[in-house]
């Protein structure tokens, strides 16, 4: 899977541990394993959804890919076949225009002291993407694409509603003409009707510009709507990963099954076959031995308590990390079996 040009992003066994400082001299007394071995490939022009409970490392994964969270602990992040963490400062600056992020909370991620035109245009000027003469037109154009009016340029963020602020955040990310955008819960702070507007906007922009998204969210229905592939995370691990249809129609991992059964369906007659997970997510500083999910798993076996499962390809492009499928054939090695 080395330098395949189909893939804009290849993440291999990515790890990020945060040290826990303690004691008199504040030395490291432990580690929070926020991301603990995440592997996936992202095709150009597609959207990958990343779902999981809070604290499972979704956001950290997004940030580590963009090299926004200091040094990684291990693994590889190849962007267009190039290791992001091997780049020099200068190369990284060039890369910043290619990969961007939209943050979760549009209320705290915009500087209250800058007018909107400056928020959107600051990076454009910094990276000298357009000449001075074209600058104003360029910003107007970007704002227009994101559903903002030119006269909004002189206003300040507090004058906008939540949905419009999120549009500003999107415009800021897109002004640099990126190829890859990490959307970190872009709609979770918004109302349902505004959510729909922003999701439609993101989809439209993707079609126009051939963008690739990593869409981080805990709202499964939104993820199903927007993504081509989905990764399910639990406690720093990607437990299941595959095409959206495969994952939603045929979830394999017990955690994915429980997660999907917990989605409330807007139909009062719908029968609930809910798998209610006991307890809450364990601390990532001290994760359970073996399979990390075994403490809450309904199908827990003796083996799960000691041995960590490895990623297996059950159907073409559908990977799962679970001992339940130890006996299933790995299609990556042999002919595709019937799942």
């Amino acid at each position, binding site marked *: 899977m080395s330098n395949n040009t189909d893939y804009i992003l290849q993440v291999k066994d990515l790890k990020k541990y945060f040290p826990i400082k303690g004691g008199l001299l504040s030395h490291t007394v432990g580690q929070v394993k926020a991301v603990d071995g995440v592997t996936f490939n992202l095709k150009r022009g597609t959207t990958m959804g990343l779902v999981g409970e809070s604290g499972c490392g979704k956001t950290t994964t997004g940030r580590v890919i963009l090299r926004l969270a200091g040094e990684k602990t291990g693994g590889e992040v190849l962007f267009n076949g190039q290791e992001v963490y091997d780049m020099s400062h200068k190369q990284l600056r060039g890369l910043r225009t290619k990969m961007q992020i939209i943050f979760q909370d549009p209320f705290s991620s915009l500087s209250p002291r800058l007018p909107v035109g400056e928020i959107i245009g600051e990076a454009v000027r910094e990276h000298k993407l357009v000449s001075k003469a074209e600058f104003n037109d360029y910003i107007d154009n970007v704002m227009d694409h994101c559903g903002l009016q030119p006269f909004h340029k002189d206003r300040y963020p507090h004058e906008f509603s939540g949905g419009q602020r999120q549009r500003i955040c999107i415009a800021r990310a897109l002004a640099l003409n990126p190829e890859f955008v990490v959307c970190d819960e872009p709609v979770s702070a918004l109302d349902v009707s505004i959510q729909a507007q922003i999701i439609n906007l993101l989809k439209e922009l993707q079609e126009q510009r051939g963008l690739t998204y990593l869409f981080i969210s805990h709202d499964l229905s*939104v993820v199903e709507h927007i993504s081509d592939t989905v990764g399910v995370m639990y406690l720093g691990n990607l437990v299941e990963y595959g095409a959206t249809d495969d994952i939603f129609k045929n979830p394999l991992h017990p955690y994915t099954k429980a997660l999907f059964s917990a989605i409330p369906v*807007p139909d009062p007659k719908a029968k609930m076959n809910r798998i209610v997970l006991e307890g809450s997510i364990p601390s990532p500083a001290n994760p359970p031995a073996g399979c990390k999910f075994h403490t809450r798993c309904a199908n827990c076996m003796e083996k799960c308590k000691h041995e960590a499962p490895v990623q297996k390809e059950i159907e073409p492009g559908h990977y799962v990390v679970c001992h339940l499928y130890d006996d299933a054939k790995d299609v990556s090695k042999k002919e595709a079996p019937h799942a």
Partner: protein
Amino acid sequence: MAKKQSEGYLSAKESRRISKANRKITAQLEKRRGRKNVPESEYLTQMRDPQNAVEFDNLHTYFFTDAGTVKSVDGVSFEVPIGKTVGVVGESGCGKSVTSLSLMQLLQRPQGQIVEGAIRLNMGDKAYDVAKMPTERMQALRGNYVSMIFQEPMTSLNPVFRIGAQIDEVIQLHDEEGRSKAAIQARTIQLLQMVGIANSEGVYGMYPHELSGGMRQRVMIAMALACSPRVIIADEPTTALDVTIQAQILDLLRHLKDQIHSSIMLITHDLGVIAEMADYVVVMYAGRVVEKGTAQEIFENPAHPYTIGLMASKPVVGKKVDKLYSIPGKVPNPIDMPNYCYFKDRCEMCVNGCEGAYPPEVSLSPTHTVSCYRYESRKEESENEQ
């Protein structure tokens, strides 16, 4: 050079005039509410239907701000039957929280005031009108008859007191039996067990920061249930929680409601949660009820364009659509509401009558009513038949 003022601009002079007028109104209302030893007859009332736990009748709650009067709740009427769950849906700012705060008399005062209407609370042998209750008497009602589960379990617990002490306090303040300290503690631990906290005695001595979000929400629920209230207001109880934890909490709420025979008023913007929990649904928009009915009626046969739009704009797992429907435009300015249907400017199903005054309620079935001109003709038909 005269500066061009944007829409909604207020000069300092104008603002001063408004706040002076506001002070006059609010001071009067406050004085009325602050009276001591009010005879019971003044707020005693009769339930329209003794099967209801709460009846909101033409409730108007206004906020008198310096920029003008915000009509947060503008003529809301609905009932919460005993033992049932009523779901209130709407976007942020539509007045769903203010409606519930009016019932608790926990509005931001003195700006927030109930100016008109009645909230009848069924006390068993009698009924009180909460809108007329003096503050002094409210204390006896809160906790014992109505209690509330707040949205943010992270911020609604006091970080400097232990969990046990915070629940003890509730029981101590509202308990009329005069229990001993040990009895109160025993009750608290029993409550913690009831809401599914395994290590209840350990949690009794813990601080809020030692608990996860789901556990904190359980503590909040335990606190709300401490005195077995007749009505529980759950204001977005699961919005801040993950789906798996949300499922746990919803199961718990449903289970506990039956256990202590109370009614739940569930406020949320998640239609999925409503479908799962509610028997009746009230859809609010810009301070008014636009549609109400049983959960079946609302979900199978939504009548108001806003309800229809709301349903269409939410992606549903298993139903693929190419493009999500999004309701065009935005909510009108609450200070300066139009005198026609509030939804008209965003509505894509306008009919002839829409230019007229705010549409009256039309009944589609004994339980299903909607405020929309599209159904006006149907109303006349049904009247002719009769």
